[in-house]
């Protein structure tokens, strides 16, 4: 009998504080697996968000530097410009990246900063108790959109990945999910490709990961994963939104 699955080396043994069935836990492990497989543990620097994953440095066994809410893309820019041969990734939730941090993200992408962003999209502000987020869909119930998000009062959700695909400096943008083993494996491939994009210097890379938040969606983990399939992907379609890595031969 051979052990074919175990904890990645770059994920510390600390038990996760995330809720049962939370997408963060799955995504943390995937990032750890990719860092292990690509041998990046000694050269990776991560930037956690303000959000449920604010304590990510207790889980990832790589250098990590805290950013204030939404500003990870700017911090990553400063860090990567100072250390161009390291792998710099930001890990951000939907509020962090598409509300307060939109300007920094769009500009980092437009400047073509060689950073990778892992964007966890669960349609709510999790850590603060489930308020409406920029990616909350119309009709979705949250603590600041009781009765469901209304077009007139709250406006429309933001499809940030599509917006970033327009930026000329973005090199690779894909939307995946972690609500089934098949999607989880697809997410892992996307993370790997994003890090490769960064290592080759092609520009800004981002993986948007649709992620269950059973606690704030008020569903069981299994139901939450189904809801992503049945409802969420209709507004946030999965797939590659931009990929110029095949065309570029040399880094700038």
């Amino acid at each position, binding site marked *: 009998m051979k052990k074919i699955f175990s904890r990645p080396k770059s994920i510390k043994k600390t038990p996760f504080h995330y809720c049962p069935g939370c997408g963060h836990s*799955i995504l943390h492990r995937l990032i750890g697996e990719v860092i292990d497989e690509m041998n990046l543990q000694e050269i990776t620097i991560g930037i956690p968000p303000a959000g449920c994953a604010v304590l990510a440095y207790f889980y990832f066994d790589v250098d990590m530097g805290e950013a204030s809410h939404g500003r990870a893309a700017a911090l990553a820019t400063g860090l990567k410009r100072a250390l161009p041969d390291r792998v710099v990734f930001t890990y951000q939730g939907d509020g962090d990246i598409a509300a307060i941090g939109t300007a920094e993200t769009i500009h980092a992408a437009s400047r073509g900063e060689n950073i990778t962003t892992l964007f966890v999209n669960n349609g709510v502000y999790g850590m603060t108790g489930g308020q409406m987020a920029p990616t909350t869909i119309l009709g979705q119930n949250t603590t600041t959109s009781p009765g469901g998000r209304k077009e007139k009062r709250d406006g429309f959700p933001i499809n940030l990945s599509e917006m970033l695909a327009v930026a000329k400096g973005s090199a690779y943008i894909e939307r995946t999910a972690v609500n*089934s083993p098949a999607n989880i494996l697809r997410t892992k491939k996307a993370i790997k490709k994003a890090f490769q994009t960064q290592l080759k210097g092609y520009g800004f890379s981002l993986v948007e990961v649709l992620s269950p938040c059973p606690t704030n969606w008020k569903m069981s983990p299994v139901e939450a994963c189904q809801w992503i399939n049945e409802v969420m992907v209709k507004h946030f379609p999965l797939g590659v939104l931009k990929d110029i890595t095949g065309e570029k031969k040399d880094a700038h």
Partner: protein
Amino acid sequence: MIEIDSELCKDCKLCISVCSKKLIVTSDRMNQKGYYPAFYVEKNLRKENRKCTGCGLCAIFCPEIAIEVYRA
């Protein structure tokens, strides 16, 4: 076969939902954190069509990295 660390399990039931051989059930014994963890039903190993193939889907889905998978 698989090994589940019952102290890490938070009873999300994602592994149960994805095991095609129905080899994981919810235990009736609480763990230290107060969850009823997932439990690998070993005694069905003998029956041919309900033997663990080591597909690993449960471990891939498990958020807590509580499952280790072994394959012959």
